[in-house]
């Protein structure tokens, strides 16, 4: 059985192809923009989730280690954390000191020296905060510094880096004027905006990025078995009987820490991107609406003849909306395919989520239908008397 609305689309195929391409391009952009935000969200959570700490202790009102500046003295804070956390913190893991500092190391790639962005993560081997042997893609962990140390002690300046930094084992990178040797490579260890992480011993990090000051940025603690992260944080945060009653610190769960990172690095900066996505949706609706409207206006006599020979508004409406639906679905499907192809080639990390892709697709089709519905409505207003005039 010939589907007349399909034949009509085929008859106007050049216009249909151009509309489909327009919708596909816009859908691809909408999905890629969403993918950029997803990528940022993923990167924002990646390190915190990897670390697996239950409580993040930082200087009060600093905003935390990821968004503000916090310096704490281990000799002062660690015994207090152990004392106030007794019973609810995991004593076997203890208190893990951590340095998390944005840096601009100089690396040599392909014989060319250049300054890149990175985050230096200083942690103590065996504690929370960085990779263990089993997380390495290749190479080894850095040589750990002694448990008890002093500023005068010599520190091995070695690092385990994310492979996205582009350097190989044995290569030297310069951080804060110090030459650091790469000894191990890890994968997918990045902070937001594709910033690779460089893991070093806590002492090496102090020397290179804190000018050898024996402070750290934050402390990580795990809850004891049978206790939740919330209980641990509540205990340490208690302003009367907790750590906060004696030191100006704030303690957050991993979820709160992630929320802070997302708010600062993703949600707020990405508002403009979200706005752009909405504009792209409106543009898609406008394109489909405009082209459908022009096409409807162009075939008023055909529609008039159909109405004169008995087509009711439902028939006409269905015909136009089916055409809009097919054009939009094909356009959006093509857009999804293009987005999936383009995502890996994108210069920044793009994570196209299938569920979001489906939602975006449905929403895009809905927007296109909305755009086309005006043309469909206009088609129902065609006067069948037009059949008595002019040529088709």
């Amino acid at each position, binding site marked *: *059985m010939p589907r007349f609305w399909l*034949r009509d689309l085929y008859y106007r195929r050049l216009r249909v192809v151009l509309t489909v391409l327009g919708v596909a391009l816009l859908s691809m952009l909408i999905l890629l923009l969403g993918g950029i935000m997803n990528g940022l969200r993923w990167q924002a959570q990646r390190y915190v989730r990897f670390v697996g700490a239950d409580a993040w202790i930082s200087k009060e009102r600093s905003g935390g280690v990821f968004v503000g500046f916090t310096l704490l003295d281990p000799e002062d804070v660690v015994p207090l954390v152990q004392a106030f956390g007794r019973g609810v913190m995991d004593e076997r893991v203890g208190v893990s000191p951590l340095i998390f500092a944005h840096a601009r190391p100089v690396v040599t790639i392909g014989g060319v020296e250049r300054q890149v962005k990175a985050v230096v993560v200083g942690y103590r081997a065996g504690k929370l905060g960085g990779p263990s042997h089993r997380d390495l893609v290749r190479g080894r962990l850095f040589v750990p510094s002694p448990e008890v140390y002093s500023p005068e002690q010599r520190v091995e300046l070695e690092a385990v880096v994310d492979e996205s930094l582009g350097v190989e084992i044995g290569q030297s990178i310069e951080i804060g004027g110090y030459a650091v040797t790469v000894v191990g490579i890890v994968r997918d260890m990045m902070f937001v905006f594709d910033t690779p992480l460089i893991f070093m011993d806590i002492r090496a990090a102090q020397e290179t990025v804190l000018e050898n000051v024996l402070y750290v940025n934050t402390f990580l603690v795990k809850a004891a078995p049978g206790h939740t992260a919330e209980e641990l944080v509540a205990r340490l945060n208690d302003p009367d009987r907790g750590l906060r009653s004696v030191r100006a610190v704030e303690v957050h769960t991993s979820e709160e820490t992630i929320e802070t990172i997302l708010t600062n690095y993703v949600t707020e900066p990405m508002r403009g991107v979200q706005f752009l996505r909405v504009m792209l949706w409106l543009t898609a609706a406008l394109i489909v609406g405009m082209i459908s409207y022009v096409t409807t206006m162009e075939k008023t006599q055909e529609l008039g003849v*159909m109405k004169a*020979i*008995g087509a009711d508004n439902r028939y006409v409406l269905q015909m136009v909306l089916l055409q809009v639906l097919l054009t939009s679905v094909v356009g959006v499907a093509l857009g999804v395919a293009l987005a999936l192809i383009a995502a890996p080639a994108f210069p920044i990390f793009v994570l196209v989520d299938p569920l979001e892709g489906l939602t975006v697709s449905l929403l895009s089709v809905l927007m296109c239908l909305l755009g086309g519905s005006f043309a469909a409505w206009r088609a129902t207003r065609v006067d069948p*008397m037009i059949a008595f005039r*002019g040529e*088709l």
Partner: protein
Amino acid sequence: MSVVVEGIGVTRYFGMGEARVTAVDHVDIAIESGELVMLMGDSGCGKTTLISLLGGILTPSEGKVILDGEELPFHRPALLPRVRREKVGFVFQMFHLIPYLTALENVMLALDIAGVRGAEARRRAAELLDRVGLSHRLHHRPAQLSGGEKQRVSFARALANRPKVLFADEPTANLDSRQSENLLELVRELREQHATTIVIVTHHESLKPHADRILHMRDGRIVQEERPAENEVASIDDPEKREYPSLR
């Protein structure tokens, strides 16, 4: 014979105020089942408007239309398409075939609109095209057909849903005399085969012998009625006009 379509005091104005034009002016008309009626008159005298009103395409400003015993629901326009697809067939001066559909599909379109689809629609459409002598042109598009062939497809489309009345607006206007003669021959055959009532708007005097009745219009009114077979002519102003059941 019974009356199949009847217009009572049918009037249609266009425009408003001083610009108002009366296209059809209080016309009373009754057409009997199986009749072939021709509407003649100068351009702009209201012939096309009158068949649009009788066929339920145009809503009268005054008066009413009764088609197949049912008063057309002009006050409920949503119901008019059903009347048009079930009881009326239209043939247009410019054929108005859908350019991207073949002859067969153009006829099937009318069936599709009426809800007849698939093999049944294909069979009926092919049969109709066969009857109008186009069985060899089923899969040709309008651009590949001659004027006469297009008009035959147009007739087949109009007859697709077995209408009670077929209205044809200047069906021979774009045909040469031979094509016109062939078309009228076809109309006569179709009328015999389908027992369809046919109303033709035409300028062509040469077609008059084919009609049962010719109604002459002037300034939106029917002013004269002819019955070629009986060689009778009656003016609408003639006191004896009531002898014709069609004019009241």
